[in-house]
């Protein structure tokens, strides 16, 4: 019987003939923790009383509450720094040299085709955009992976998503994934993987693939995996660490269901509070906003910044609106500088900060007050996600976020022409 990409990678890494439904113990290529999930992992590691540590496979990335929000987060960030120092962990990314973990994992070449990567952050599924099997785990199991280099996995069933056509202008991966989650629900892919196939895949940029894979978890998915093609190879060229082996599905692989999307028919989408599955075509909505947020592991890449800058260039942020622009990593920040994008955002009246997850999870750097609304290029709009329990988050792609910052209400770039 043929295998899906997830089954093939888990077979290779576990040394077994793995099929959906089985539980296997597999070697992981990398295990990542952040400043929130790391400290628990460090405590659990100590409980194991095992001297062995797979240091080269460990990646420690402070990003949620750094630069330190307050004394408590300073203590927490220091725990990670000290742990890295004491144990001699090379892959630790200090403030100023790193950024939002998932973009950094790709930029730094940890994420690559055919790899099995786990991370104590739910959006670890992002690396499926470059043909990795990657998934979010907890802190205790991260500790076990530190000590043993392996973890237990339930081999997921896979949903096949067949893509045809190409996106219209100002429509992208975010709009597609909100469409998919709206169609199948926030648990429509629980315990499952997505696999993306069809002639449309070649028309989807790697940046968009990372966005789509990133939000697989918002449908409950364990992973969202794209095949490796020329775009993938080109994207990781020069940064990928070591060698890699692309993995494609067998022609007779078994899928639990097939979804079909014509990319040309996808409209700009916005997910209303308080679930990512509450998607609506932007054109059918009428929502005034107080804040527009561009950034995060979902849409904080240079491609997102370019798309947004094109829309706000020569325009001004609407009165009464705060437009926050947060590049995902230092590298994205520098690229924005080199390409003149910082100038464009400054001129339009945006606030630009260095990389942090801060506001996305309601941590700091852009918290919403009671009754306030934000349109955001992030991935979650749960109750109180970005602040007060009576604030609201509307999820959208970078183009819609940029256009909305200018309009003061949620609009597509096309609608902005009418202002």
């Amino acid at each position: 019987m043929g295998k899906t990409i997830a089954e093939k990678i888990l077979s290779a890494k576990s040394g077994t003939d793995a099929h959906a439904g089985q539980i296997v113990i597999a070697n992981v290529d990398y295990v990542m923790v952040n400043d929130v999930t790391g400290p628990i992992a460090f405590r659990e590691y100590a409980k194991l009383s095992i001297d062995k540590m797979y240091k080269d496979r460990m990646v420690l990335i402070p990003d949620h509450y750094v630069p330190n929000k307050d004394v408590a987060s300073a203590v927490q960030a220091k725990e990670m720094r000290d742990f890295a120092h004491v144990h001699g962990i090379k892959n630790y990314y200090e403030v100023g040299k790193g950024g939002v973990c998932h973009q950094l994992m790709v930029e730094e070449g940890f994420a690559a085709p055919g790899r099995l990567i786990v991370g104590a952050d739910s959006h670890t599924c992002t690396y499926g955009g470059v043909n990795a099997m990657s998934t979010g785990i907890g802190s205790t199991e991260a500790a076990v992976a530190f000590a043993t280099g392996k973890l237990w996995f339930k081999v997921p069933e896979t949903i096949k998503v067949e893509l045809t056509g190409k996106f219209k202008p100002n429509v992208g991966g975010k709009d597609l994934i909100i469409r998919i989650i709206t169609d199948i629900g926030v648990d429509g892919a629980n315990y499952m993987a997505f696999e993306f196939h069809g002639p449309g895949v070649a028309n989807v940029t790697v940046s968009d693939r990372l966005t789509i894979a990133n939000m697989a978890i918002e449908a409950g998915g364990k992973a969202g995996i794209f095949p490796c093609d020329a775009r993938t190879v080109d994207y990781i060229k020069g940064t990928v660490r070591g060698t890699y082996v692309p993995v494609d599905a067998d022609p007779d692989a078994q899928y639990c269901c097939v979804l079909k999307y014509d990319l040309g028919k996808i409209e700009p989408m916005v997910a209303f509070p308080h679930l990512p599955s509450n998607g609506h075509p932007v054109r059918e909505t009428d929502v005034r906003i107080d804040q527009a947020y561009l950034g995060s592991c979902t849409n904080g890449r240079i491609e997102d910044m370019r798309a947004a800058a094109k829309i706000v260039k020569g325009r001004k942020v609407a009165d009464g609106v705060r437009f926050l622009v947060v590049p995902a990593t230092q590298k994205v920040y520098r690229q924005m500088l080199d390409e003149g994008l910082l100038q464009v955002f400054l001129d339009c009246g945006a606030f630009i900060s260095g990389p942090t997850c801060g506001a996305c999870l309601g941590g700091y750097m852009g918290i919403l007050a009671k009754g306030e609304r934000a349109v955001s290029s992030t991935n979650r709009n749960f109750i109180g996600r970005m602040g007060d329990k009576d604030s609201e988050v509307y999820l959208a792609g970078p183009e819609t976020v940029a256009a909305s910052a200018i309009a003061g209400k949620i609009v597509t770039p096309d609608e902005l022409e009418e202002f």
Partner: protein
Amino acid sequence: MVSKTIEGKVWRFGDNVDTDQIIPAERLVSTNLDHLNDFIFEKVRPGFGQQVQKGDVLVAGRNFGCGSSREHAPLSLMEAGFSCVVAESFARIFYRNSMNIGLLLVECKTDIMEGDRIRICTADGKVTDITSGKQWTFEKYPPFIEELIDAGGLINLVKEGKF
């Protein structure tokens, strides 16, 4: 698997209870790790952490624990005193985290009401609403998960040399 019987009072929740509701992100700092129960459901049910008694059971609908990978979510429920969570389905990372740290989860669709008394018996796979007398059956755990439950979590399983 070693059989477990749990009896307690029910706290009832609905579908898609996310980890931001269970414990908000702004509480996720290491200085809070010894009193996470102070913050459970603080945005949606203020004061909840103080009302829960040791041994109580949380009962929910579909997709309980969706969202973040924060282990603080199951940890805070354990620290508050919950002995078990019964839900129609669980989000996968929450499921892993709970089983890995020793919080028992039971996947079972029920219509048990808040305040009822519940009994969960792993030996016969039955969930009983003691108040109404209704009963439901849940599926046996896979062998690996049984070992994990018996060990009391992944750390113990590794220490016992079974991983």
